[in-house]
Every structure is written in C-alpha cells, then in structure tokens.
C-alpha cells in the first residue's frame, strides 16, 4: 500500500481494492475542497494530523451529519488497512481476505467515533486502530459461528436489531418486516433446543411445532401488527423463517462499494457543507491554542509518571504478565503455557491489573484535574489506559518471551 503523503490527501481520499490488493487512492472532491478551506483559515502554524482528527471529531460531535464524519472516514482508511492486514496474517483464515476485513472494520466506523473522547488528549489514530482491531476480531468470531450454525440454530442466535437491518438491507417493506419479526418471535417462543449442547446443529422443527408456531402467529397478529394481515399457514411460516436465515447470512457480506464512499450523493449538497463560521473558527482556534496544547502535554506527562509508578508497585507475576502481553505480544494462551497457569487465570489477572491502573488514573484525575470518576468519564479512560500500555511497553525493545522471567 502506498501511504498518503499530504494532510489534504489523508482527509479526503479513500482506498480502493482490486481483488484483494490495494489499488489506489480515490479523491473525494467535496472533501478536498473542505479541508483546503479549513487549512487556509489557519495561520502558518504547523498542525499535526492528530489535531486535525481531534478537530473533525469535535465538529462531528456538534454536527453528526456534516462532512466531518467523512473526513474521519477518509483519515482512518490507512489504519484500517494495516489492522486488517495484521488480523488476516495472524488468523490465516482462507475464507476472509484483506478486503473483507477492511470492510468489516470500516463498516463500524461509528463505533470508533462514539467511543472516542477528544477531551482526554488521546490519539485518534491509536484509538481507531485498537477499536477497529477488536471489531474485526469480533466480526470474525461472529462469522465463524454463523457459518457453522444450521438455519434453525441461527434464528435463535440473532439479535432482533441485526435481523431487522438484514431485512431493510433487502429492501423489504415495513409491514413485511413486522410480519416476519412476529413469526420469528413465535418461532423462538415455541422452539428451543432440547439438548444441553450441540445447539448449533438444531434441526428443523417437526410439523407439530410448525403448526403451533402458526397458530400462535395467527392469534398474535391482531394485537401485535398495526395493520390488517392475512392469516398464515405452516408452509408459509416455514418459508418465512428460511428467508430470515438467508437474509441474516447475506447481510454479513454487505456490498463493498456502498460502504467505503461518503454516505450521500456527492453533488446533491446533502451534507451541511460547513458549520456556522463562528463555531468553526472557535473550534479551530481551540485546536491550535498553544496554551491548551501545553497544558495537555503536561497532563500527559503527569499521567505517564503516575502509571509508571503504579506498574513498578505491581506484584512480580502481574508485571510479568503485562510484559509478555504488551511487549512480547504473546497471546493469553501462550502466556498461560509459559507461566504454567490456566488461560482464564491470565485473562482474569490482566483484567485485575487494568482495574488497579484504572483506579490510579481515576484517583489522579480526581485529585489533579478535579474530574469526578463517574462511569461516564471512566468509560473513556479505559481505552486511554490501553493506549498508554501499548506505548509504554512498545518503547522497550520487542522482547523475546524467553527473556521474561516467569515468577
């Protein structure tokens, strides 16, 4: 992949795949105009790309439907590519290529936008990278699971939201969707696994069960559907359920092109091209405010020393696990093997260590920044902690596992 060179490119171009390989960067003219405009408003200061990302993120918070989202979508393209590549390499899964993984990640951009808090001085790219990585892994896990489920098992293992979106994706009408969902609810109410395991192989219901499902549907439709709907017969209900399963499977592979381009028609001017000038100017000024930047740097350093100190105070086993995990980059299973403990012990210890560190950060920000450690604040602190751990251990030489003494 050819990395993008200029700031303007980074916030206005989208990656194109040819088969499973990088092809080129495609410029989005509206975005290019927009970023140029903004840049021209700034004095001749050198502003880092992270500051631009933070700026667009702030704009996105004020105006979720503005071009800001698209600028950020353009910006994460590279990160997304590298994360996708790393994941495909480490998984060696033949059925999903680089482009698939890229697509899984970019489709969840809103998760990154919603989860990031620019006020805490984090690095947007790092945050995006970590979040997209876990989103890809989660998608892969889901796909693997869905691929090995029978249709009937799958129907019991889908969220209503996912199923509804799958129907919308197929362009079904609202009333059809409502009928299908009701039938699906009836199916789930009356058909459950009858064995403790092996639920993925759930067989097709017997005719009696189909009859009962149909009966329930025909009774419930009067109360549950807010339109006149004809009664259904068991064959129909069965077909509907097959259709549900098919829609859910198809929905896993959304059309690639539709996702990696800005949401609406480029020329229609649907986007709010710009924020009111005053808002924009104040956000821009805030961004390059030297004073604020300096304060932020100081805070970052303080936080870093608080955490380094906390790590030294951890017990030796916890320190070893952190080293093996973040520095030697072993999986939890590999750590377990090396330390002769169970994998779930590693997972639990890691979670416990993070709790200790999260508490340190919370106490520090309560004392120094007078930020009360509410769950709303802490929810954004976790990812910053993660980012810090990555950076802290990343500074050291990549460690070969043998050099870490298992306590």
């Amino acid at each position, binding site marked *: 992949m050819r990395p993008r060179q200029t700031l303007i490119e980074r916030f206005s171009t989208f990656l194109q795949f040819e088969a499973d390989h990088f092809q080129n960067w495609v410029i989005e003219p509206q975005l290019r105009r927009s970023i140029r405009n903004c840049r021209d408003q700034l004095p001749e200061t050198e502003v880092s790309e992270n500051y631009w990302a933070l700026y667009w993120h702030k704009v996105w918070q004020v105006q979720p439907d503005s071009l800001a989202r698209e600028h950020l979508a353009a910006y994460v393209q590279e990160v997304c590519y590298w994360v996708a590549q790393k994941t495909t390499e480490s998984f060696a899964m033949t059925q999903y290529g680089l482009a698939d993984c890229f697509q899984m990640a970019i489709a969840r951009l809103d*998760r990154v936008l919603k989860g990031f808090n620019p006020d805490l001085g984090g690095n947007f790219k790092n945050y995006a990278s970590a979040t997209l990585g876990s989103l890809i892994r989660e998608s892969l896990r889901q796909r693997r699971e869905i691929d090995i489920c029978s249709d009937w098992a799958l129907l019991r*293992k*889908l969220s*209503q939201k996912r199923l509804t979106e799958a129907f919308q994706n197929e362009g079904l009408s609202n009333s059809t969707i409502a009928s299908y969902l009701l039938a699906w609810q009836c199916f789930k*109410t*009356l058909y459950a696994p009858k064995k403790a395991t092996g639920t993925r192989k759930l067989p097709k219901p017997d005719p009696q069960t189909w009859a009962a499902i149909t009966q329930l549907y025909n009774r419930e439709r009067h109360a549950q559907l807010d339109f006149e709907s004809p009664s259904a017969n068991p064959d129909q209900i069965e077909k509907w359920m097959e259709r549900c399963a098919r829609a859910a499977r198809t929905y896993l592979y959304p059309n690639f092109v539709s996702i990696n381009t800005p949401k609406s028609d480029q020329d229609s001017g649907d986007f709010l091209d710009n924020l009111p000038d005053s808002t924009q100017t104040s956000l821009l000024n805030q961004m390059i405010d030297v004073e604020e930047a300096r304060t932020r740097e100081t805070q970052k350093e303080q936080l870093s020393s608080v955490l380094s100190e906390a790590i030294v105070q951890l017990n030796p086993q916890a320190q070893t696990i952190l080293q093996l995990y973040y520095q030697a980059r072993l999986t939890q299973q590999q750590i377990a093997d090396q330390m002769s403990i169970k994998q779930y012990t590693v997972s*639990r210890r890691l979670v416990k260590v993070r709790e200790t560190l999260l508490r340190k950060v*919370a106490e520090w920000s309560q004392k120094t920044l007078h930020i009360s*450690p509410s769950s709303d604040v802490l*929810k954004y602190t976790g990812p910053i902690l993660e980012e810090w751990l990555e950076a802290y251990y990343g500074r050291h030489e990549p460690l070969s596992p043998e050099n870490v003494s298992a306590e």
Partner: protein
Amino acid sequence: MPSNSVIFDPTQINLDIDSTLQTQAWRQSQSLSTPSSRWNGYLNLLCLNTILPWLREDYDPQIEPALSASSLLSIWEIVNGVPITLGSNRLILIPTESIDLDEIRIPQEWVDIPAWIGDYYVFVQVNPDDGWVRIAGFTCHRRLKQEGRYDWRDRTYSLDDSDWIADLNVLWVSRQLHPEEATRTAVPTLDALSLAQANNLIQRLGDPTTPNPRLSLPFHQWGALVSHGGWRQRLAESRWGWQVQGTVLQWLQTGVTNFAEQIGWGRMEFQPGLSAARGDEEPTTAIALSRQLRIAGQPYELRIRPLDGDNGRAWRFELQNLTPGGLIPAGFVLRLLTEDLQPFEGNEDTADRAVEQLYIEVALDPGEGIVWEIEPIPNQYDQEILRF
C-alpha cells in the same frame, strides 16, 4: 479453531463453564414447564453458576444470588434474568445466546417493577456448545431508562452496543471512587391486585399451554402479580403441574413438602416455656415449624407453632437469635400480612430495645394465607404464602 484469548477483546472477561456444572444446570432446568422456559432456566443457571464463583474469588466473597434457588426457578419460568446482591447494590445478570451483540434486550420486569429494579445490569453472552460465558458489558438503571428503547411488542428495553460500557472495571472503580453516582431512576408504583383478581389470573396463566404469560395481560397487572413472590410461586407451580402445597398444619402432622424443605422449612420438637419446666412436672414437648434466616450477617430462626393443639386456629410466630445468648437488636420488626399483603390488627411486633424474642399470636381461618416479613430484610428473602 483459535482459542478464545485470540479472538476476544482482551479487556473483557471470558470464563469457562465447568462441565459438571453444565450437566447439573441442564438437570435442574428440566423441571420448568415448556421447552423455552427450560432453555431459559438452563442459560440463566449456566450464567449464574459460572459468574458467581469468579465474582466471589476476585471481588467480594459475600456476593450471592438475591433469591434462593427455588425462587429463581419460578422467575425463569416466566422471564430472563438473575438478580444478585453485591453489598448494598443489586445487579441483574442478563444472559443472551445471541451471536451478535448489536443490541441487548432487557425484559421490562427488571426495569419497571419497583422491587425488581437493579442498580446495574450486566450482559452475559453464553455459549453452551463451546462452554464459555463472556461479560459483554453493563449499564445502570438510570441510563437504561434514559437510553433504552422500549418495545411494546415484546416488553423489553433495548440498548445498542455503543450505549453500554464494555469494560466491567468501570463498574468496580466508579462504585468505589464515586459512590454518590445515581444508579437508579424512580419508577411509578404498580397498583396492587385484589386476592380475587390474583386467583383469577393465576388460574388463567397457570396453564402451561399459554406460551408467553408475561405478554398475555397489561403490564401493570402482570407486574403487580409477579412482584408478589408468593403469587409468582403459585403461578409457576401451577404451570409445573404441582400439587397444591398443603397447609402448615398438614406439614406439622405429616411432614414438610419437598418444596418447603428446599426453602428451609423443617419440623422441630421443642419444650415450650422452658423456664416454667424447671418445676417437678415432666416437660411436655411441642412441635413447631422452623426456618433459619440470615439477617444483617447473623443467624436467626423463625418458628411457627399451633397454640391450641390440633384445632389449627390459633398460631404463634416467633423470631429469635440463633447465636448462643444472642438477642434481637432494637429496630427489628416481625410482621404478618394477609395473602394480598394487607396489614391487620396486631400484625406486627417491633423490638424497641434488644429483646429475646419477637412474637405475634394470631387466630386464622382454615385455608387463610399469610405472608411474613422481617425488617431488616433477611438474605435471599422472597415473599411466601403460608397456608393455614
């Protein structure tokens, strides 16, 4: 297949389900009435019995289910979810078998029945095939009421994955460092049902061929019915096809039923009026029904005995401390209510100073139901109807 650790988000906890425990959970859930309720009970048991040992070991050894095992079964007969007690907080585990976590649906019962509300709701993905559970995240009641979308069709509040907090550490740390954070929002109380209404509903919904009792009547009625532990139990028992539980007098005469025994009731012989028996007369033994309770960390005993032999009209309820020499602290209240939870004259005894015993003597009609209450609330307390 890659191991869980590779594929899961490292900040989230995933726990292996013990295989013995899995077999046990399956067996226990088979007493429920329909394939769906059995499956629901099974998932909830897997979730509870896997998570509880971990919480006890890593966080707080005192953590326990908010209800006894038998009360929980009657909950799972009708709805998904497990309440557990965490210090002064109540936490509701919501298991899901969904592969995707695009949303979680929380049954309205846990959100809008005042006595059922939790401070926190913890979402748990359960995979019985591969034998693991994963903590997907949590929210609190306040946020759930704010951000959850209510769906009248299945009576749930649904939350999108971006609206809950994935990292459970946030719960522990905020609870410790920011305990003043409001976790709950007030909800309107539910109008009480009369005994006749309740009997009627239990008869109608107690038929196991009614597939989804929770959706078969308006929520305010349903909520009022099942928030009464005794009525919920009667409803579940009816769906399970159980014999009527029998009266306290029958329990005393012919033995306590299995179910009553599971809750903790047993027959005991004792000598009434020990102090009077110091004389020359041979002390007479009497028989009583007793049940041990844990209140504010101390063991107590609730005793029920007939005052007029086999006549079965006059009864005495007694509460005493089981610790040798232990008293009942000031402020404790023992209270009796009618089956539909109405007070009556002389229905309570309050300790205005530390006393040896709290007691109430009542005359009851044959077949009358009584619900006992104690303040402070005993561990795992659930209203139960004692039939006389």
